[in-house]
């Protein structure tokens, strides 16, 4: 089916190739700013792809994924503060802490569903926010500059180009993994549980367990984006756990195409790109951006990838790429 091929293979590959070209183009045009700007896009694309596993495949409307981004940032800043610059330690701490927290948050949150799930994930992110604010010895409110960026042997994420390359590789691997996972038995069962958990339970699988696993993978992967972000900004701040960040991640996923492989990448690109363009026009860019989000919610959510893949073909309707909007 060509439309499915477009969204899972052609589009991601095209996007990743384009991303790979960015540093060369930026260097040729002597616009180094573009490299760090696109690095930010890559990092948010990683976070959005991670969220998409829970939100798109699992149908879990997590309004607290900023928690994992923030924790990932602090997994760099805190050891660095104590003089540990080893990137493997940062990574281990990041994945370990985020996975563990995601497991705890998920285990409690998945006891509820629907509206309560949205709110309890939000509450956990707020809890993390205030916990980090309370760490006055580590900057509290003001955040913590990253004293030493993650260094993997001789490979240091402190400068922009290595960071860009790492983010691109991580995003490529993650996208490939998600494309595989989406159609693997686990992904199929997870997507089934979104549409009808009772049936999944009835055939002997445990829907809640699948969702918990998805939530843990999602959280741990989202943490990696935080690790990269802390290295890019050389800064970790509680404000990266703000509830608006969680909201923005959801907007990216839906804008790009929920439950699709390329969607989160497209969403991060369009979201941050549009933000940058609008900021160039007016400092009050949210006056334009807010209504656009409202409009997006109103017209329904095929997302951009959905629109691309759904071009009506003469004679037969295209296969829907976005699975039907199952209840949350």
């Amino acid at each position, binding site marked *: 089916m060509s439309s499915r091929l477009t969204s899972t293979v052609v589009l991601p590959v095209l996007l990743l190739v384009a991303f790979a070209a960015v540093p060369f183009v930026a260097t040729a045009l002597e616009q180094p700013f573009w490299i760090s700007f696109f690095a930010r896009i890559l990092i948010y694309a990683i976070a959005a792809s991670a969220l998409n596993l829970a*939100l798109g495949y699992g149908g879990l*409307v997590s*309004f607290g994924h900023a928690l994992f981004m923030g924790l990932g940032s602090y997994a760099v800043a805190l050891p660095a503060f104590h003089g540990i610059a080893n990137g493997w330690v940062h990574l281990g701490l990041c994945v370990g802490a985020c996975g563990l927290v995601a497991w705890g948050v998920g285990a*409690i*949150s998945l*006891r*509820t569903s*629907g*509206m*309560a799930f*949205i*709110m*309890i994930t*939000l*509450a*956990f992110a*707020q*809890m993390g926010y*205030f*916990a980090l*604010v*309370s*760490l*006055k*010895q580590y900057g*509290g409110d003001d955040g913590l500059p990253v004293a030493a960026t993650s260094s993997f042997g001789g490979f240091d994420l402190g400068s922009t180009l290595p960071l860009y390359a790492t983010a691109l590789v991580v995003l490529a691997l993650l996208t490939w993994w998600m494309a595989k996972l989406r159609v693997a038995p686990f992904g199929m069962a997870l997507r089934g549980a979104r549409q009808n958990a009772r049936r999944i339970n009835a055939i002997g699988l445990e829907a809640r367990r699948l969702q918990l696993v998805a939530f843990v993978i999602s959280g741990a992967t989202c943490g990696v984006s935080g690790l990269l972000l802390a290295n890019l900004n050389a800064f970790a701040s509680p404000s990266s756990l703000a*509830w608006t960040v969680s*909201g923005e991640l*959801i*907007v990216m996923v*839906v804008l790009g195409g*929920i439950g699709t492989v390329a969607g989160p990448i497209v969403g991060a690109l369009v979201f941050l790109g549009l933000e940058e363009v609008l900021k160039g026009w007016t400092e*009050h*860019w*949210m*006056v334009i*951006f*807010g*209504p*656009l*989000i*409202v*409009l*997006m*919610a*109103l017209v329904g*959510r095929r997302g951009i990838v959905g629109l691309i893949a759904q071009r009506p073909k003469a004679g037969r309707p295209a296969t829907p790429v976005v699975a039907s*909007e199952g*209840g*949350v």
Partner: protein
Amino acid sequence: MSASLLFVQLLNGLQYGVLLFLLAAGLTLVFGIMSFVNLAHGSLYMVGAYAAALAYAASGSFALAVLAAMGAALAVGLLLEVAIVSRLYRRDHLDHVLATFGLVMLFNELVRLVWGPQPLFVQVPEVLAGTVQLFGFNYPSYRFAIIAVGLLVAIGSYWLINKTRVGMLIRAGAQNPQLVGALGVNIGLLNAMLFGVGAMLAGLAGAMAGPLLSVQSGMGEPVLITTLVVIVIGGIGSVNGALYAALIVGVVDTLGRVLLPLLMRQVAERSVADAAGPALASMLVYLLMALVLALRPQGLFPARRG
């Protein structure tokens, strides 16, 4: 800590809880009956606060300011309901979150565009500027007024929901909206009315909070998130639950902020305790919510469903 100081803090907690109830009462009905996740409720609170601040500055009458706040919030609320919200009732929660998230961005930025990032300050009205002597200590009359208004609203909503025909429809709508619609009741109108009343109460809360807090862009979100906690603890759709949970959250939060730093001084250095205490106290209500949901996912005082 002396007993009277503790009592004052208890009253402060009660006052905060009452303010939360004003927000939670409308929101829990919107959540429970229309099954609509409304993040823009905090914006309606902000609309109320700004309308009150501006009307108070223009007219000098606080009563007029409160009326202006309720009117403005009602108007904006109804406009939102008709233009956007009513189109989304049948969609799932993700669409609600998205649309109202966009609205929050819009409202906050609009306010910043028109009135700038600086907060507006509202004076406590002169009649209520004094203190009341109670059991040998003084307590600000204005805070008492807030408690009184909140309790009046609580009694009023109890009467509306349990003793009137409209209330009966609301309760019926909470249990089975399709059936109520099938009996010939205009559910669309009922929904719009409920949303409007909720907005009006949010505006009232904004007006009452104005003299205590700074009126500024983004003021709605911290209180909105706390209100969400209240609703979840109380049980979604339950007004009684919202009242009890609002008071619990108000008292826990206020007392936590006072007592936690004191407790922490026992185990940590004074400077660390004073710095970390308030932030940890902010976590307290979320911990409470997590605990409640872990033990009773339906909330402490869930609405009865048929």
